[in-house]
C-alpha cells in the first residue's frame, strides 16, 4: 500500500510575531515542531504499513527549515519525504496551500491513501485536508476515530459525526483526516535518529509543479486576505453577588445558560 502523510511545521509556542506591514505571520526564527495532530496521522500510516506492507512517504510545505519535520518523520519510520518550498508560496491561505500540496502529491506519484491530521495548532482550520482531496478529485472522510480494516481496494473507517458514528467503506485512492488519539504516536527511534541527518529530503519548488502558474500560489493565489491581526479583548469583567446559597445557585445557573456554557 502506498501511503502519503501530509505534515506541517508549526511554532513550538503560541507566542508568535506578526509582520505589521503585511499582516503575515513571521515564522522564521521561532522555535518550531511538528504539528502534534500530524503525529497521529503518521502513526496511523506506520501501523498500516507494518500490517499490510508498502511505503510511507511524507510531504510538507514551508520555509527551508521545515525540512526538520521531515527528519522527525524519518526518525519515526517514514521511508521517504519531500518539502515544497519556494518564496512564491509565501502568504498562502488554505486554498493556495491545498493547491500547492495537491500539485506536490501529483509530482510524487500515485497513492492509495493520503493521511492528514485533523487540523494544525497554528491555523486551526481543519480545511486543508478536504481541499487537497477536492483538487485531486478523490473522496475524503474527515474525523476518523478508528481504522476498522483494509480491504483489497478500500478502507473501512469510523467517522465521528457528533451524535452518531458512521462506518463507511472508502475506495482507494482516498484522503482521510484522523482524530487525535486514533493511535498513540511512537517516540522517535535512537537508531533512526542517528541516520536521519544524512538522509535525503527532496525539495520541490514552484516551477517543478504541474501547474506552475505563480498567480495560483502565495498571496496572489489566496482568495482570503488577513486584513488585520489583533490581540483578543481581555475578559476583565467581574461581578460580585451576595445572597443565600439557593439564590446564588439559581443565579449562577441562569448566568451560565446566558453565556451559553450550559
Amino acid at each position: 500500500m502506498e501511503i502519503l502523510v501530509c505534515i506541517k511545521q508549526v511554532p513550538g509556542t503560541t507566542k508568535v510575531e506578526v509582520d505589521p506591514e503585511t499582516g503575515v505571520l513571521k515564522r522564521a526564527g521561532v522555535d518550531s515542531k511538528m504539528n502534534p495532530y500530524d503525529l497521529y496521522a503518521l502513526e496511523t500510516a506506520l501501523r498500516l504499513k507494518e500490517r499490510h506492507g508498502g511505503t510511507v512517504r511524507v510531504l510538507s510545505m514551508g520555509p527551508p527549515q521545515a525540512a526538520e519535520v521531515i527528519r522527525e518523520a524519518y526518525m519515526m519510520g517514514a521511508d521517504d519525504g519531500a518539502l515544497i518550498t519556494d518564496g512564491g508560496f509565501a502568504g498562502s491561505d488554505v486554498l493556495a496551500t491545498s493547491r500547492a500540496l495537491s500539485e506536490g502529491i501529483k509530482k510524487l506519484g500515485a497513492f492509495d491513501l493520503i493521511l492528514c491530521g485533523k487540523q494544525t495548532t497554528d491555523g486551526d482550520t481543519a480545511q486543508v485536508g478536504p481541499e487537497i482531496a477536492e483538487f485531486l478529485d478523490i473522496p475524503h472522510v474527515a474525523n476518523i476515530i478508528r481504522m476498522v480494516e483494509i480491504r483489497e481496494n478500500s478502507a473501512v473507517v469510523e467517522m465521528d459525526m457528533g451524535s452518531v458514528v458512521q462506518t463507511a467503506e472508502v475506495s482507494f485512492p482516498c484522503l482521510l483526516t484522523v482524530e487525535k488519539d486514533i493511535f498513540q504516536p511512537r517516540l522517535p527511534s535512537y537508531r533512526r535518529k542517528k541516520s536521519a541527518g544524512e538522509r535525503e529530503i527532496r525539495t520541490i519548488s514552484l516551477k517543478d509543479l504541474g501547474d506552475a502558474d505563480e498567480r495560483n500560489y502565495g498571496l496572489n493565489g489566496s482568495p482570503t486576505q488577513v486584513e488585520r491581526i489583533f490581540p483578543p479583548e481581555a475578559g476583565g469583567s467581574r461581578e460580585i453577588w451576595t445572597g443565600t446559597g439557593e439564590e446564588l445557585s439559581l443565579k449562577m445557573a441562569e448566568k451560565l445558560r446566558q453565556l451559553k456554557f450550559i
Partner: protein
Amino acid sequence: MIWKERLEIFMKRLICHQEKVNEANREQLIAVCPFHAIEYNNGVIEISAGCKMCMLCVKNGPEGVMELAEDESAADRDSWRGIAVYVDHTYGEIHPVTMELIGKAKELADTIKASAAKAKEPADKAKEPAGPTGKPAALADFPVYCVFMGHGIVKKAEELLHYGVDEVFVYDEEELADFRIEPYTAVFEDFIRKVRPSSVLVGATTTGRSLAPRVAARFRTGLTADCTKLEIKDNTDLVQIRPAFGGNIMARILCTKTRPQMATVRYKVMNAPERSPERNGKITLCDIDKAKLTSRIHVLKVTQKPG
C-alpha cells in the same frame, strides 16, 4: 492597488476541452500558439506559464477545443446576492447551529438592505432616474436562503420557515440519505451555481467542517474557519473575525476577489432568532441530475453514540 485591480479584470481562465482533442487537430492546436505555451504531455493538452492570454487558440484553433472562462470574481460582486445557510442535520434532525446562522444571516442581510435604502434616499430627492448601474437599488433585494439536502426531509424543511428565511432550497434524494462527501458537494455546487449567494455560512460541526472546504475548493474561493464574529460592508464584503494560535491572536479576514464568500461558525457562538408562530418564506424543491450523485463511499453502518 489600481494595478492589482486591473490585473483581476484580466484574470480569465483558458479551459481546454480535452475530449475534443484528437490526433487530427492536436498539431493544429499546438501550432496556433505564438508563445509555444500549448503542450501535449502524457495524453493531455496543458497550458504552460508562457501563455499571454492572447486568445488566438480560442479564435483560430480547432473549433470548440479552447474556451475562455470568465473568472467569476470581484468584478462580478453585484451578481452574487443574498446569504445562504447550510442546513446542518443528522439523518434529518436539524442541528440548532442552523437557526443561529439564520439569525446572523438575517442581521447581515438587514445591514445591506438598510445601507441600500439610505444610499437611495438622496437620489430620490434629487429625482434622478435609477440608472442601470443603480447598485444600491439592486442590493435592496438581499435575501436569506437555506440549502437543505438529505432524504425524506421536505416536511422538516417547514420548521425553518418559522425563523425568517426567505427561501429554503430542498434537495431530497435517496443518494443523500447518508452524509457522503461527493454527492453533498455536488448538490452544494448545484445550489450555488443556480442561486449565486454572496456569502455562505456553514455550521462548524464535524460534517460542516468536512463539506465547506470541499465546496470552497470547487469554487476556488475563500473559506474562513470558526468565525466568532461576522460583519458586512456596504459592498457586500464579509468581514470575518476568528481566533488563531489557540485564541492568542484574533484575525480580521476578507475575501474580496472571489464569490461566494464562505465561513464556518461554531455552535453557540451566534444567537438564534425567536421562533415565530407563523411561517414566512417559501420552500423550493430542486432536482439534480442523478449522475452527479455517485460516490466512492459506501456507508455500512450508523451507530448512535451513547448518552
